[in-house]
């Protein structure tokens, strides 16, 4: 996803304009528009994938609404169909979504006052919600406006997935290869990440780990690849630390 890199959020003391709560929803709708244009069609692709994988259509709204973490959902459908063990699903969920840990450093949760609101804000802290709410433009947004924004984002995603699942049932079985949407999604995310870091050793290391896992341990590929990659990064960290101290 093309996510504008969030500006450093030095959260200045809150002087949120005391706007009436009735104007918060339309403002949030406007804030969410551009990102929604991207989330809805990806949701459609997810819904189509759900029914084409052989799952009932209603799993699309259930998974997209409850798991609510785009790339994990695509992968989850594949793992469910492949009867992957729960431990592998859990590990994948952990590794794919580990990045969310860092969003807490600058997500403006303190502006949301009610406990229920805080819970929903954390639940809905997706890449898109984080990117929109931690930027400079969002500094004056009230907690209510943030919650509205998150609700709109979730609506785009879940309604896209539901529409895709219902639409997918009428796509003839001769049409194959829609699952490539997931490959394309990850390839695009990889390209964006490479562009952001401008550093080649890490992706090369990851590619080697992925290929070794694919050919040496095909049945446990994901687990082995992630383990190898994390170990390699930790080793590299230890080496650079030692070099820095020497």
């Amino acid at each position, binding site marked *: 996803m093309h996510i504008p890199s969030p500006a450093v959020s030095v959260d200045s003391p809150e002087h949120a304009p005391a706007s009436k709560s009735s104007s918060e929803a339309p403002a949030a709708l406007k804030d969410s528009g551009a990102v929604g244009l991207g989330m809805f069609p990806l949701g459609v692709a997810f819904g189509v994938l759900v029914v084409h994988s052989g799952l009932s259509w209603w799993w699309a709204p259930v998974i997209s609404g409850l798991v609510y973490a785009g790339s994990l959902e695509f992968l989850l459908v594949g793992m*469910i169909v492949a009867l992957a063990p729960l431990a592998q699903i859990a590990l994948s969920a952990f590794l794919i979504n580990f990045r969310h840990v860092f969003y807490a450093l600058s997500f403006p949760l303190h502006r949301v006052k009610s406990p229920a609101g805080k819970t929903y804000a954390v639940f809905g802290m997706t890449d898109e919600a984080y990117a929109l709410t931690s930027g400079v433009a969002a500094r004056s947004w009230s907690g209510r406006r943030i919650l509205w924004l998150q609700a709109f984002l979730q609506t785009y995603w879940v309604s896209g997935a539901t529409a895709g699942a219902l639409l997918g049932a009428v796509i003839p079985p001769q049409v194959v*290869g829609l699952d*490539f949407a997931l490959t394309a999604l990850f390839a695009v995310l990889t390209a964006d990440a490479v562009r952001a870091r401008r550093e080649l050793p890490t992706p090369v290391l990851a590619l080697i780990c992925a290929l070794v896992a694919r050919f040496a341990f095909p049945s446990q590929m994901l687990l082995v690849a992630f383990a190898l990659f994390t170990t390699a990064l930790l080793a590299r960290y230890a080496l650079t630390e030692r070099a820095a101290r020497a």
Partner: protein
Amino acid sequence: MPDTPHVFAAVAVCVAITFGLRALPFAVLTPLRTSAVVHYLNARMPVGVMLILTVYTLRDLSPAAPRQLVAPAIALAVTLGLHHWRHHAVLSIFGGTAVHVALASTLTSH
């Protein structure tokens, strides 16, 4: 096809872990801010994780069956080419997927 309880269990595991990862750091923020190794991993994990996932989605392809490789290889090139050109994720993903569906649907029907 997995039975419904298994799918529910899989979904529940993902819900719990995803929510936990989003919620936990708000409780234990301070140590994370200062951990050098965590920052090191955070800077480098995303690109590697995404690349490994890309390869994972293509795991059923085998060099022993080169004909299988045609559609995904062309579609991947189209996806990355579009992305390099316009830098618009939705366009890249849909363009690449459309090419793949067109190729895979016609190639496999013969």
